[in-house]
């Protein structure tokens, strides 16, 4: 283990004695990153990354970008311990989490199993803080798991049956924070603090009860409380409601490089809230060092122009990590029985898919840089199968028309629209969240080819929440959304999202609801393939054999490709990433995904560094 070097950023505090020296701040067994092995270079400390977000609450992106998790994905999307020194898993049922000795919160207090205990006993276990009881994921097959704390550096989670989703859960972009800084939060907790002492705090915070106060200060994800200790690489140094949020390096961070440089390399991250329409303009004006959020492909031309006109940045194009950039979901639970029957006919969905000119869309929207095809695992995933990608996804209007004719939809009206069995013309209403122009453009192109199928596409933009509510209620006929968020499944990825277990998959909101509410609400799936998916999902969670799981996954993907529950248009659309020319270790090519991936998170921004941090400081 190399000797850790003091950072210049905190040097003054250390000299003043306000902060212990670096060697005492890092854990006894820090995480040492072998950058060279990853193909990266060793860096130097210093500098400021400026980046932009469009909403105040997006400062929580710092928790996402920082991506310090108990266990986290690497760039290969494999799970490995991060904050934890180690995890031992028995039968996917019992998880023993081993903490690093000497690991400290950002305020210097030790990070121990007591922090897990506080969460479990005083937060989850407190009826006022958590009126709805323990989180759903703690319950497996109807039985609540147990949590125990054998010693200060060990925490054990145990269930009666296997809970394979546990570790991936901890690696999410937004993980359940199963540890809380107990030493800090206790002062707001009724179990530990006198009500009389709490009263003035409650008043000051303008909340109504101690529980609300606790909830207010306890925001591990929102990241808006500068007093709340954290384990992330950068800590929030600006409280309150400003548009400029400064994050400075965590002096107690648990990682360092092989040369003994304490991570993160970059001292300060400044995240500024601006209008979403201005992000491109500001990037173009060179006001950011690292930016991807808020940029989309149509900004590339202007970014490239700025670059060639002497902008001090490069525009990288990463691939998007969702399974499909644009996917149309016919609602199999649509309230209109006639349409519902038509949409449930797989021939109809296949015909729709065959009637999409994906090449044209790709060309018009992405310069042909995306992958045309249906919704399936991305090429970067071990489960990728080109067959699935291309199933029913080549433009073939004759075949599509034949399929529709075959369904008996042969009647047409004077305008050439096919008629539904009850005589109405086929006006296929697709609702969108109205947030992305690409959806609108793609639908405009699809409209033309579908007209040749005798189907009129009617696009209807709504608000995101309204759209979701309408889909759940079975009121919308079809919706456009991204494909699965996770386009990079691995055999060990829980396939739950691909089976009718969630109403959030817009093709089967009611089936998903049925599963989620254990039969209280919604409808039972009556489609054999959907039932098969459910079965496969069950089988996956009841085995721990990786190859078997891979087989299950393959079958699931085949079913989706064949059934076209979601009609994907293309995937891997390029995502512009603006990077300062001086910022190093940013991968040239990578996947831009929220989960898994945490956007920049898996690429470890704490390893990014400025070539000449001093020069930057002088320039400012």
């Amino acid at each position, binding site marked *: 283990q190399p000797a850790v070097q003091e950072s210049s950023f905190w040097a003054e505090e250390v000299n003043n004695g306000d902060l212990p020296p670096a060697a005492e701040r890092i854990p006894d067994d820090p995480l040492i990153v072998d950058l060279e092995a990853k193909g990266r270079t060793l860096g130097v400390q210093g500098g400021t990354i400026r980046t932009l977000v469009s909403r105040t609450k997006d400062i929580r992106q710092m928790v996402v970008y920082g991506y310090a998790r108990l266990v986290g994905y690497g760039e290969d999307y494999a799970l490995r311990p991060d904050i934890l020194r180690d995890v031992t898993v028995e039968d996917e049922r019992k998880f023993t989490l081993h903490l690093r000795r000497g690991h400290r919160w950002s305020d210097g207090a030790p990070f121990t199993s007591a922090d897990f205990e506080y969460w479990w006993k005083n937060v989850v276990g407190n009826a006022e803080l958590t009126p709805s009881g323990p989180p759903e994921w703690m319950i497996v097959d109807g039985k609540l798991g147990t949590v125990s704390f054998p010693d200060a550096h060990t925490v054990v989670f145990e269930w009666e049956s296997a809970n394979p989703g546990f570790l991936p859960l901890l690696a999410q972009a937004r993980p359940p924070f199963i540890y809380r800084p107990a030493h800090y939060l206790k002062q707001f907790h009724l179990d530990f603090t006198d009500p009389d002492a709490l009263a003035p705090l409650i008043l000051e915070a303008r909340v109504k009860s101690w529980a609300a106060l606790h909830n207010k200060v306890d925001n591990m994800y929102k990241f808006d409380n500068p007093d709340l200790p954290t384990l992330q690489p950068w800590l929030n140094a600006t409280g*309150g409601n400003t548009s400029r949020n400064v994050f400075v390096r965590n002096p107690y961070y648990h990682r360092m490089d092989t040369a003994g440089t304490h991570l993160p390399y970059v001292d300060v991250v400044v995240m500024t809230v601006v209008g979403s*329409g*201005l992000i491109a303009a500001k990037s*173009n004006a060179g006001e950011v060092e690292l930016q991807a959020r808020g940029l989309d492909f149509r900004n590339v031309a202007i970014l490239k122009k700025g670059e060639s006109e002497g902008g001090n940045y490069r525009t990288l194009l990463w691939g998007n990590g969702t399974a499909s950039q644009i996917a149309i979901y016919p609602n199999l639970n649509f309230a209109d029985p006639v349409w519902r029957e038509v949409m449930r006919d797989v021939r109809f969905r296949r015909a729709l898919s065959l009637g999409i000119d994906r090449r044209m869309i790709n060309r018009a929207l992405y310069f042909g840089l995306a992958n045309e095809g249906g919704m399936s695992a991305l090429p970067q995933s071990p489960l990728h199968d080109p067959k699935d990608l291309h199933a029913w996804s080549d433009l073939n209007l004759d075949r599509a028309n034949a399929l529709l004719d075959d369904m008996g939809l042969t009647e047409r009206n004077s305008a050439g629209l096919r008629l539904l069995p009850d005589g109405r013309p086929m006006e296929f209403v697709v609702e969108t969240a109205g947030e992305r122009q690409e959806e609108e453009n793609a639908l405009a192109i699809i409209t033309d080819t579908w007209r040749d199928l005798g189907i009129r596409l009617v696009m209807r933009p709504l608000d995101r929440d309204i759209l979701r509510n309408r889909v759940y209620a079975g009121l919308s006929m079809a919706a456009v959304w991204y494909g699965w968020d996770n386009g990079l499944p691995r055999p060990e990825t829980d396939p739950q999202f691909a089976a009718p277990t969630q109403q959030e998959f817009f093709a089967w909101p009611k089936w998903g609801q049925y599963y989620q509410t254990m039969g209280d609400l919604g409808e039972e799936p009556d489609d054999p393939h959907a039932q098969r998916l459910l079965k496969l999902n069950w089988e996956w969670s009841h085995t721990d054999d990786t190859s078997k799981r891979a087989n299950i996954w393959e079958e699931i993907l085949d079913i989706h490709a064949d059934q076209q529950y979601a009609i994907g248009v293309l995937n891997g659309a390029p995502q512009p990433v603006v990077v300062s020319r001086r910022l190093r270790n940013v991968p040239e090519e990578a996947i831009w995904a929220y989960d898994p991936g945490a956007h920049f998170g898996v690429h470890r921004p704490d390893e990014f560094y400025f070539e000449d941090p001093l020069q930057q400081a002088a320039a400012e």
Partner: protein
Amino acid sequence: MMFLRYAISRLATMLLTLWIVSILVFVIINLPPGDYLSNQIAELRATGQAEGVAKAEFLRREYALDRPIWEQYLIWVGFAPGPQGFSGLIQGNFGWSFEFDRPVGEIVGDALWLTVLINLAAVLFVYMVALPLGVLAAAKSETWVDYTSGFIGYLGLATPNFLLALMLFYYGQKYFDLPIGGLMAPEFEGQPMSWDKVKSILIHMIVPTFVIGTSGAAAMMQRLRANMLDELSKPYVETAIAKGMKPSKMLRKYPLRMAFNPFVADIGNLLPAMVSGSVLVSVVLGLQTIGPYLLTALKSQDQFLAAFVLMFVALLTLIGTMISDMLLVLLDPRIRMGGKKA
């Protein structure tokens, strides 16, 4: 005396109206199905994030969202006790914003003065540009002054605000090094007032003021011009000329006051219209005014925040109309608010 009596009765009317408006506001906000927290729970579920669901449910209970709507209304206004006793608008508690996870008063407090600032600047701009130009265009009607000012005004009107803003930002940055978006350089935020901060605010306000102001200025100018043209041929203008008044002073004192009548009538709408009219501009320009908060709150059904902003705008409107009615009486002594026969 009579005026005082009128003012008092007008105030009473205003309170009554405000109460009716509060009911309507609450109903309208609760009209769309669902509420913020259930939407949030759905969203959290959709993205598979279990964290946060518990907190949302906590808030549901804490803010009585599980009760019938009329009860929610009474609690919100402060007519009925909520889970924590009486604390509603009339008790000075504006509620909680779920979206921002902070008390409404706190959020709005910051945005409020910026809103007032930027709108005042825009109103000032409108008046400073439109008043002299409108009067001038009328006094010199059908000359190049008239045509040019009209043309530029219509140019501003016919360009969508967003496009105008983008263009001004882009070229302003490129050629004049003007800042893009925001109302002050971010590093001044939360800092005490200083000369540099004032300077930064002023520089940042150039483009927004211009964007928000252009359409208003053009509209006011053209209407003022039309009204002035009507007044200019009235005999009392001749009398004023016969007195030997300077045209500029004469125009200001006599016909302008007469021509101002329709504008005074609309003073009530000046601020509120700019608040709601500048919502989209503010969203696009990234101004931290109350407008974007309203839009976000409405879209995500963050009901207390939305309700408060709406009530605030309503209050502005009501106060505005009240002032406008009183000004009308002061402006034109012939006006009686009474019935036809009196």
